């Protein structure tokens, strides 16, 4: 049953699934970088800065 063509197909399907997963992880890692960058930008923004100052006080 799992011989010949169907086995090759199963193999290909599985490898494609792994490739998709690898691409997804890579996309997530690049999103983390941009989240950190935007967090950096916000850190210097007035509003958040004020909250930080307030946090430091307490």
């Amino acid at each position: 049953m799992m011989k010949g063509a169907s086995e090759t197909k199963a193999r290909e399907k599985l490898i494609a699934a792994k490739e998709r997963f690898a691409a997804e992880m890579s996309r997530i890692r690049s999103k983390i970088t941009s989240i950190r960058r935007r967090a950096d930008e916000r850190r210097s923004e007035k509003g958040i800065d004020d909250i930080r100052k307030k946090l430091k006080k307490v």
Partner: protein
Amino acid sequence: MNTAQESPNDRERREPPPGKPEGEQTLQQLAERLRRERDLLFDETLKAIDTAWEEVEKIDDKIAERELGELRHEAEASKEQLTSAIDDLAFEITVVEDEEPAAEPATENQEAELEPAKLAEDMLNRKSGYFVALENLAAMAAKNKDQHREILGVLKGKLGNRAEEILTSPELRKELVEMKARLSQKWGGKDGPPITEDLDLAKLVALRETMGKNPEAFLEVIDLKKRLEAASGTGKMKYTKGTAIRLYDPEVDQKTGELTTLVKVELAFDDSSGDAAIIARLFTREVETDKEGNPRVKKSVHHDLFKLPSRLKANGMAADITRDSLPEYDRQGLNEINLNADIDMGSYAWAAYGYGWDKKEMASHSMAWQKNREMDVRVGGVTKKIKDLSKDEKAAVLKESADYFANEGVIDVIDVGRKNLKEALTEVGSAETESILKEFESLVKNPLTVTPQTLAEFGRKGLKLFQTETTGKWYTEESLEEAVRNKKMTADDAADLRKKPFHAGKIVLLSNSWYGAIDLKNTGEQGGKNRKMLEQYLSKSSAKKP
């Protein structure tokens, strides 16, 4: 841009690992190899999320925390998908190996010899093709009381209270078969995303419990592509991104036997303008304790991402979608809509929609709660620091003192708002500064009476200020005229600014962050008041043609 993030490991991973090339590996070896590679990639991603999390937690950046939390979910869901694909194959290999010696079809007697509990477990572990096994189990259960008890025991562990009905009602089983068939299609034709993937029986049942018999009906509501086509508007949209309906870990509540779960419904689009659009909603089914201490099922929807292309902003589309969502929510029997009204989403706008405070979230995000991490509490007769409590213990402590910390959360919003207001008024040197601030203090004197709406309404008929988007500089009507006279601003720019006046309440809520909720049923704490406000707001706004 992605190349900058590429680690040396990424490059290594593209090469086949040492050992047998793919073609020569058995399927089992391949499955094993992919499992290892999956774990490596996943661990690395999770580590990156954790490092970033520690960084943003230090600076209390709630937006980044939320985004990272979202990414963690995405990574977990993606891992789950790959795991299912590998497990499916592993299952097929096992079945083939099991079946090969028995070339003859199983007779009734042979089937009866199989252990029912084992059959039930196998069925629950399958991602597809489980309905034949379910019918067999139902037939076995109907014939023999002991087997019924045994099978039910296994099913209850994964399907909760609904297990008995599934076993005894052919109508319900038929409905589930049809539901699974519909949900295995693609949404909106062959170019659309899959509606669901890897829906095992527990997930299928959990989805039915959470979103009703036709969960896909909700996709119709959030489908911007179809909405645009129906409105014969200009420009087109294409579907992007993966599965439309995803489920995370259905679990059976030990005390009540109720199935609890989190369902993420998301449609994403590429707009012909080059912008992206995304609508995401999270449906939860959980067991909570009411005021009398009795457990009850609570179903809620979290309005998560809502991003429209610029050309469709401010044309009433958001209101239209919310309006059409309400009958769907009622059909599903939801108790509550909740959301995070933050800087990006316009914390003023959600107050206008009628959202009240989401006490639970206001409490857990209050600075007082965050600050109290070092505080000692007694839990189950033991003294522990709040920061050392387990998730469940934390939830219990928070619940106990929910009102106190929710009020502290409101005070945080007031504090940020006061600062915003004071700074804006001081910057323009308004003669009304003192009187407006005094009025604000009397409004917020008793935080328990402050609602998002009282803040949003504050000073609506009074002084109006204007703010430039680029520099954030504040103007009064007079200073705007002066800037035009002195050629520091063009008359057109000034006219644009005048279109978006800020009254005091709007300034208080802008760049503020709070958690909002609307009870959908009159029996909730809000007594239907906020839902009425929402409906009134929605009746006033409707979509214009894009």
